[in-house]
C-alpha cells in the first residue's frame, strides 16, 4: 500500500501537470480556428455525444505546418541557434568550470556563489541590461570607439549575434555547474599518472580530463539546448526581425494571429522535437548513475 502511494505521487503529478494540459493542447491543435470565444471549434457538446465531437477533429493544422515554409524554417533556425549557442556556452563555460575546480578549496564556495548570483536578479532585467550594452549608443560601442578599435558603432542589437550573446550569458550557469561537479570529482593523481606515462599537459587534458568530464559536458549541453530551442524572450528582445525562432512564431500565432489551433499544433510538434533530446538526456543520467555504482 505504501509503495503504491509512493509510486502514485509522481504519476498523479505527471498526469495533472503534463498529460492533461498536453491533451487539451492536442485537442485544440486538432480543432479549427473560429472567431468566437474560445477562438476554436468544435466545443464539446453533451447533446451530440463524443463520437460526433471526435468526427469534427482533423489534422489540417499539422498539414498546414508542412505547407507553409515559415514553420519548418523556424524549427530549423531554432535548432541551428540552439546548437550554436550550446556550443558557445560550452566553450565559455568549460574553462570557467575548470578554473573553479582547480581553485583552492576555500575559494570554491565563493566562486560558486558568483556563478549563481545573477539568478538573484530578474531574468528580464538582465536581458534589458544587455540591450543597454549592445545598442548603437550602448556601453560596448562607446567603449570600443573610446579605445579606438572602431570609428563607426557596430550594429549588434537586433541581430542574431545579440541573440547568441544573450543566450550564452543567460544559460552559462546551467553549463558551468554540471561540468564543475564532474571536474571537481576528478582525482588529480590521474593527471599526474597520465603525465608520468608520457603525456604532455595538453594530451593529458584530452585523454583524461575531457573523457572524465564527458557526463558533465553532456548534462550541461542538454540543460542549455532544451530550453534554448523553445526560447522566446531573448530572441524577441535582443533579436531582429530576421531572427526566426519557433518560440517567437508560437507567440505570434497565439497573440497576434489569435489562431490557437495552429499555435497549438506548433507547440505539439516542438514538444515532440524536444522529447528526443530529453530521452537521450535521461539515458545519459542513467548511465552515469550506473557507472558510479
Amino acid at each position: 500500500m505504501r509503495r503504491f502511494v509512493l509510486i502514485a505521487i509522481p504519476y498523479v503529478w505527471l498526469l495533472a501537470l503534463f498529460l492533461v494540459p498536453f491533451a487539451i493542447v492536442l485537442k485544440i491543435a486538432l480543432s479549427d480556428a473560429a472567431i468566437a470565444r474560445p477562438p476554436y471549434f468544435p466545443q464539446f457538446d453533451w447533446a451530440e455525444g463524443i463520437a460526433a465531437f471526435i468526427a469534427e477533429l482533423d489534422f489540417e493544422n499539422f498539414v498546414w505546418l508542412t505547407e507553409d515554409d515559415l514553420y519548418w524554417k523556424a524549427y530549423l533556425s531554432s535548432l541551428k541557434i540552439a546548437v550554436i549557442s550550446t556550443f558557445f556556452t560550452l566553450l565559455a563555460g568549460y574553462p570557467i568550470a575548470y578554473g573553479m575546480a582547480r581553485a583552492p578549496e576555500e575559494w570554491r564556495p565563493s566562486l560558486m556563489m558568483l556563478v549563481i548570483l545573477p539568478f538573484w536578479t530578474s531574468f528580464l532585467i538582465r536581458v534589458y541590461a544587455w540591450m543597454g550594452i549592445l545598442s548603437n549608443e550602448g556601453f560596448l560601442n562607446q567603449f570600443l570607439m573610446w579605445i579606438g578599435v572602431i570609428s563607426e558603432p557596430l550594429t549588434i542589437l537586433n541581430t542574431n549575434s545579440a541573440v547568441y550573446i544573450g543566450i550564452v550569458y543567460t544559460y552559462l550557469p546551467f553549463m558551468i555547474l554540471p561540468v564543475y561537479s564532474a571536474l571537481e570529482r576528478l582525482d588529480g593523481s590521474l593527471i599526474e599518472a597520465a603525465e608520468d606515462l608520457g603525456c604532455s599537459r595538453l594530451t593529458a587534458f584530452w585523454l583524461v580530463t575531457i573523457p572524465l568530464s564527458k557526463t558533465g559536458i553532456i548534462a550541461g549541453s542538454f540543460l542549455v539546448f532544451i530550453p534554448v530551442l523553445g526560447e522566446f524572450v531573448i530572441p524577441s528582445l535582443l533579436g531582429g526581425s530576421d531572427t526566426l525562432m519557433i518560440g517567437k512564431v508560437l507567440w505570434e500565432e497565439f497573440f497576434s494571429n489569435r489562431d490557437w489551433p495552429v499555435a497549438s499544433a506548433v507547440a505539439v510538434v516542438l514538444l515532440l522535437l524536444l522529447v528526443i533530446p530529453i530521452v537521450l538526456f535521461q539515458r545519459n543520467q542513467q548511465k552515469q548513475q550506473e557507472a558510479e555504482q
Partner: protein
Amino acid sequence: MIHFQNVTKRYGEFTAIDNLTIDIYEREFYALLGPSGCGKTTLMRMLAGFETPTEGKIFLAGQDIAPVPPNKRAVNMMFQSYALFPHLSVWENIAFGLKREKMPKHDIDDRVEAMLKLTRLEKFARRKPHQISGGQRQRVALARSLAKHPKLLLLDEPLGALDKKLRQDTQFELMDIQEKTGTTFVIVTHDQEEAMTVASRVAVMDHGKIIQVATPDRIYENPNSVYVADFIGDVNLIEGTATPNGSDAYAMSWHEGHPPLTVKSPNAFSDGQKCHLAIRPEKVAISSEQPAEADNAVQGRILDIAYLGNISTYHVELPTGAVIKAQTANTRRIARRAFTWEDTVWLSWTATAGVLLAD
C-alpha cells in the same frame, strides 16, 4: 644509478627534505621508510618529476634530471590510489603509456599481453577498473607502470589499501616481479614489516633526513640510533652510563643498587658517557630460577602477557619500576605455559644481545 646531492625541498617555512645525499643502485629494491610527514613521499615525487628540489641536484644515470619533465623521464610511478583511468579498460590502461611512445600496434599488443601474463590478469583485460577487486587493481597499476620498461619504478605505499593477507602475498609477488624484470624499485612505505620483507636496502627517514640506510637485518640488529631502534620493531631501551671494561666491553650502570650490565659494543664510548642499551624482546630469556651462566640477569614480576598465538610477550616490571619486554615462542600448548601473571621471574641476556647507542 640515482644520486641525490645535497637536496633540500622547502614549502614556505616548512622543510620537507633537509640537505639529503643518498645513492640508489641499479637493480636494487630500495625502501624509504618513515612516519607520515617525514618527507619520503616528497622524495619520491621529486624522482617522478612532480616536484623540483629547492636546492641541490638529482642525477639519474649521471644526468641531472631537474630540467626533465615527468613525461620525458624513464621513471614510472605506481600511485597510492593506483590512479587507474576509470574510463579505460584494464587493457587500455596498460597500453596507455605505450601508445604515447607511438609504438607499432602489434608491439603494443605483445607488450600488454606480456604484462597481463606477468601480473596474472589475462582474464580481466576487457574489464573496467571499477569491475575488479582491490588486489587486481593494484596489479593493473603495477602492470601499467612496468609496461614502458622504466629504468626506475616508484611505488607509493603500493599495498596500503589491501588487507593483511593479500598484502603479504603481494609483497612476495612484488619481489618476484622485481627479480624477473631487473628494474630498480623504490618503494615508499610507513609499514616497517613491508619494507623489511621486500627491500634489499631500507632507508629510515625522519624530519626530512635519512637516519640510517642498511640492509633489513642490519637495520634491525644494528640500528645506529635510538630513533631507528625504536621505529623498527619492538625494543627495550635501558638508559645508563658506560664504563669501559676490557676490549669492546662496557659495564653499564643503569640503576643504583643494581649490578652494572655487561655489554659488548664495537662503538667506542668514553668513561661515564650517557648511553642507551637497545635490546629486542626475543633476545631476552625468561626463567623461573636465576640462570647460572648469564652475562646479565635481573629479577622482576610479570605485569602483563600478550598472547599472539605463535609467540607471547611478557611485560616484566623490575623493582626499579622499569618494564622490560621478553618474548618466547609458544612451542608448547598454552595450558602448559610455565608463567602467569604476578609470577616472579628472572630475565637474562648475553653481553652481545643488545646494542649500545649514544644519546
